[in-house]
């Protein structure tokens, strides 16, 4: 199973542009890591439950009442681009018409 990662495909899923040199370098390094984690195949894991978190907590609720939130202007200060009281972002739908 280990060894080969389709780095350009995974990079596409992860939304990171990689150069050809990075694809080669990361490919080799990730291959070495996969070889290391291959040891887990030896562990007897049948009938073992998966642990997502060691101190489990279930459905932590709070009262359904309004809570104060951050001031709009303070948050918009950090925006890479803003227009008035809005975040300005690239178009996500196709060209109109």
């Amino acid at each position, binding site marked *: 199973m280990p060894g080969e*990662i389709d780095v350009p495909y995974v990079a596409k899923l*992860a939304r990171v542009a990689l150069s050809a040199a990075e694809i080669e370098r990361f490919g080799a390094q*990730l291959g070495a*890591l996969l070889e290391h984690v291959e*040891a*887990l195949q030896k562990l007897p894991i049948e009938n073992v439950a*998966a642990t997502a978190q060691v101190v489990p907590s279930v459905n932590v609720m709070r009262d359904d009442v309004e809570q104060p939130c951050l001031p709009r202007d303070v948050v918009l200060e950090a925006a*890479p681009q803003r227009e008035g009281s809005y975040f300005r972002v690239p178009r996500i739908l196709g060209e109109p018409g």
Partner: protein
Amino acid sequence: MSEILDLGAREIARAVSAKKTSALEVAEAALERAQARDGAVGAYLTITADVAREQARRVDARIAEGASLFLAGVPVAIKDNMCLAGTRTTAASKILGEWIAPYTATAVQRLLDAGAIPVGKANLDEFAMGSSCENSALGVTHNPWDLARVPGGSSGGSVAAVAAGMATFALGSDTGGSIREPAAFCGVVGFKPTYGRVSRYGLIAFASSLDQIGPIAKSIVDCALVYEIIAGADPADATTVAREVEPALGALREDLKGVRVGIVREFDLASLESDVRAVYEQAYRDLERLGAELVDVELPTADYGVATYYLIAPAECSSNLARFDGMRYGLRVEKADVGATYEATRAAGFGDEVKRRILIGTYALSSGYYDAYYVRAQKARTLIAADFEKAFERCDVIACPAASSPAFEFNAKSDPVSMYLMDYYTIPMSLAGLPSLSVPCGYVTPAGSTNPLPLGLELTAPLFAERPLLGIAHAYERGTLHAEKHTPPVCHPERSERMRAESKGEPAL
């Protein structure tokens, strides 16, 4: 005035509370010392002078009104993955390089409420991913014991600030060893509480099922004091546990009579260099001398810790770091369409190690590999936690090395897997969520060097057993006094100058 900086947190708070000095005077002394020493060390990414002075004036005003504050005027360094409202908070990443936090992390707020003075935001491996601090995109931190060596990581700036006397204590965060390994490398105490003890609200997330904030200080007493202040449930973090935080300061003990210390059969000291091995053998003998009974315990799955961790942590990281898309905050590299903008922003904003972990995590979570990698690792995690549970039937704490070597030189670990193995002794405890700390346990002097380098003993207790853990660590610390035997050369100005001249020059970023 600067002598007050060499006192413990309780002594400083007492002096300020008794008006023998003021919080503002302590703050000025700490800022002055940071000015004098941080050029050589590089612990801080930002020195928060204005916030420090403003907070100091507030503390002095509260003292004048008769308030009693446990950390009155005590200088603190805050790892720069924790938010402090109005200050630059970077996670040592270019993607957040100029981001100003709009709110304050719960743990940091609790320190401010107790009167602590934030001196600066401390360097780290980018997004806390690393074991040497070399993955910071924004600065180089040197080990105060030997400027040619790394401080450890990822909380490298936090431990270096404390070791160099630039802060009385620091906050670090620990995901797989990021408090304990650097604490060992810099000769200070680093304490990771049980997962869920300290709120993660305002801590920039790396691996949410593992991340935990904890104190770094020169003594167990100071760690216990800070722990009591920052621990406890927080409505803003649903993973904090609604359990009482038992006061630890009152339970600090002076001997180890009746304590059973587990020595892990699989952690064979024979694999260590002989000088390092001798230090740990002596540490085990010291535990016995102080009254502890040493018992053999087994952790047969501990050897799988690193492999398990390097699937779970990157999987969670790839998910957490998806939020850095250049839309609402941080860096944006504008391209023709939104997809290209995401890809270019993340390519320019993240460093190599972060990209590697995002890639491995994305792969481990991707269709067809999820069960083989991610779910298998989660099952391995169950086995590792069960091994600890079994071991703790026979002992109260487990003792082992915090790291397999003292601090190494810059660029010594060029391949990622060899760096990952630096956390061999800390990762299993993190996967099991256990409270664990590193306390100074001796020194080795590498061939050709005159500087002793500190080593740390790691002590680990069952879930929520912080109180006995700190008590036992205190008895060991007071019974050995290793931290009092040497001081980092950077704390002696004349030696520091010579060290800088002898140092091999600035390592490349």
